[in-house]
């Protein structure tokens, strides 16, 4: 658990995060115009996850919170990752290993 920085420094951090979020938004719009195939999704989600992390760590103060709060936040996103990855592993493998019943 890190301590809150002094007010002047935390103000600088807020504006730096704000700038990074705007740059990330511009980057995600520009990179979407280029055809990268599957990589378009990977880059877009990579930028979105980075922006979300900046918001969680600095605007939502998780960087300075207790471990219990940080673990609670992490558990929520971990559950979301399980939900999507396990479902996708089923959909993506469907028909590739065994034939789909009824087809």
């Amino acid at each position, binding site marked *: 658990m890190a301590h809150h920085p002094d007010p002047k420094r935390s103000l600088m951090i*807020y504006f730096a995060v704000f700038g990074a979020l*705007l740059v990330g938004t511009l980057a995600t719009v520009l990179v*979407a*115009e280029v*055809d990268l195939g599957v990589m378009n999704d990977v880059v877009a989600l990579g930028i979105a996850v980075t922006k*979300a992390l900046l918001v969680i760590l600095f605007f939502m103060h998780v960087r300075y919170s207790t471990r219990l709060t940080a673990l609670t936040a992490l558990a929520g996103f971990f559950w979301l990752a399980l939900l999507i990855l396990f*479902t996708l592993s089923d959909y993506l493998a469907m028909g590739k290993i065994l034939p789909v019943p009824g087809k």
Partner: protein
Amino acid sequence: MVHEGAHHPSLQHQFDSLEQQKESSTLGMWLFLVTEIMFFGGLFLAYVVYRHAYSHVFAAASHHLNVILGGINTAVLICSSLTMALAIWSAQVNRRKLIVVFLIATMLLGMTFLGIKAFEYWDKYESHLIPGPNFSPAALHLHGADGQTAQIFYSLYFIMTGLHALHMIIGLGVLAALIRPSWKGRYDASYHNPLECTGLYWHFVDIVWIFLFPLLYLLGAHAR
């Protein structure tokens, strides 16, 4: 519950200290946000599954969303997250008038977002892209079964952005309720839990939009 003597007026009797009280409210708010992650998560999963099944229809249907307006709205929400963080910062440096200024700024930016969103919804209505009997895929240049499949994209678009907008409206109500106590000096460096928890909620709603914007608006941009 106000005690005579050494107790801080905002310290409720079930807590030992202001610090413990703050930790409890922050943890409780995060537990609520975890349920919100699950709430939106189900919709994101539905999006992923249907996008996988009908990727070319989703890309074509996404073309009709206005990237400029969506991008401006993303920037507006990021600005509102900054002003929300600055409202809490103002409490930490005991500037009660500045708290009110930043709360109002956050509300104005939130209302700007909703105004732009309403204009986008009206545009979809004009283009017959609201799912239902009047849905017409003519504006999407899709034909036959693909045109009808586009309704799945627009159903997800309206449910996800609509729920997001509903969260914004609730957030605006909570922000409005904080203005009076902030003005009266209820919040300072030692106690500002309601501001902190509202900030957590507002930033979470911002994060939902950070994912909605690329997933809904940008997925077919390079094929334009």
